[in-house]
């Protein structure tokens, strides 16, 4: 084999990528050939020196530029969320229609009173949050089975999350601009109106399951509104 062929393999040789037979073949050649040995030594030297090259430090202003770009991007994102909310909630027709629809539904449902459902026997998954279950919602049977009033539990949990988000919003609210404040008040008024209709209906017919579901839906809508505004 010519020197050129051996030289083509020198990089793989110094990187340890040749098979045992190939490696011995190249090794024997460079022991005999001064030119190829010199080339091999130089390639090793370049590789070694390259591994010792230092790392460079970017200017301290680079992080400031990155942080500023992130802040601008976040503000733009907040704006997009707010614009979306505004388009949705600022339409008076929507807010009025939503409240009227709930009122009509509550009225209609009250005409069809349902029989009172008893508590449900359920198997709780290991992931259930026991801390979120209030004792009044649990009923321990003499057999050891635990009865859980499911819809009530869910609304209790949502209520707790609503309270937590309301506390978060109270901290952020002083920093909102006037537009955000108006948007929030309108959104909240609409869901509160729906919740009030549901509560009135449930006072007259506490066991109406459809009314309960409607109430649960209105609570979830409130939770969603609070979640979105808590991020602003």
């Amino acid at each position, binding site marked *: 084999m010519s020197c050129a062929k051996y030289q083509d393999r020198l990089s793989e040789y110094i990187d340890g990528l040749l098979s045992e037979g190939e490696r011995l073949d190249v090794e024997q050649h460079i022991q005999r050939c001064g030119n190829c040995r*010199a080339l091999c030594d130089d390639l090793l030297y*370049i590789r070694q020196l390259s591994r010792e090259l230092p790392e460079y430090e970017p200017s301290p202003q680079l992080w400031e530029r990155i942080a500023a770009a992130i802040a601008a991007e976040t503000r733009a994102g907040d704006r997009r969320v707010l614009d979306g909310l505004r388009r949705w909630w600022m339409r008076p027709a929507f807010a009025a229609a939503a409240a009227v629809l709930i009122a009509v539904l509550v009225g209609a449902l009250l005409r069809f009173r349902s029989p009172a459902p008893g508590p449900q026997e359920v198997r709780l998954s290991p992931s259930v949050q026991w801390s979120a279950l209030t004792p009044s919602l649990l009923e321990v049977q003499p057999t050891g089975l635990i009865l859980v009033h499911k819809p009530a539990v869910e609304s209790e949990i949502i209520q707790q999350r609503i309270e937590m988000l309301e506390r978060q919003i109270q901290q952020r609210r002083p920093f909102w601009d006037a537009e955000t404040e108006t948007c929030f008040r309108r959104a909240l008024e609409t869901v509160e109106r729906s919740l009030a209709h549901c509560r009135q209906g449930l006072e007259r017919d506490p066991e109406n399951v459809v009314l309960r579901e409607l109430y649960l839906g209105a609570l979830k809508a409130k939770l969603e509104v609070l979640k979105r505004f808590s991020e602003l």
Partner: protein
Amino acid sequence: MLCETVVTKTADSFTDLELAAQSAAGDLAAFERLYELHRRRVYSLCLRMLGNATDAEDITQVLQVFRRIGTFRGEAAFTTWLYRLTVNQVLMHWRKQGIRLEETTEEGDVNEVARPRPLPILDRIALEQAIRRLPPGYRIVFLLHDVEGYEHEEIAAMLGCSVGTSKSQLHKARLKLRRLLQGEG
């Protein structure tokens, strides 16, 4: 009696994976920590590939847009993922400038038999300058392999070429560097 030990993690003790997840969730402090950990390597690679500090900082800054993208799922080492992004940015930058990363074969790649003169003792400045004079196709493979320590398989995946191409470009890069360092350009 059962004793419960509460271990609170400090920012320094989070892994890259944890910091990346926190960054993706919008935690700026976690992203800043990731930046502190990797800024030198990323910036140095950009600087050596592009040859000037302004472009290198621009590319390093551009990486910030990836902080929220959930493409890093911890399957690969974070640094490999980060370097792939960095290399992509550099390739895009070159593409905009009309530089194509095709397999480079310089005219005059000949048998080195006629070049017995060994290299002089080098300093790193001479080596840095020589690296800067390599054609882009040679330079990127050389930097990733010899400076950053990546394997040919990883480089091939980053650059979208074959392992054989990566090996041959590296060998040609080393030969070209030798000539440059011998003053034969």
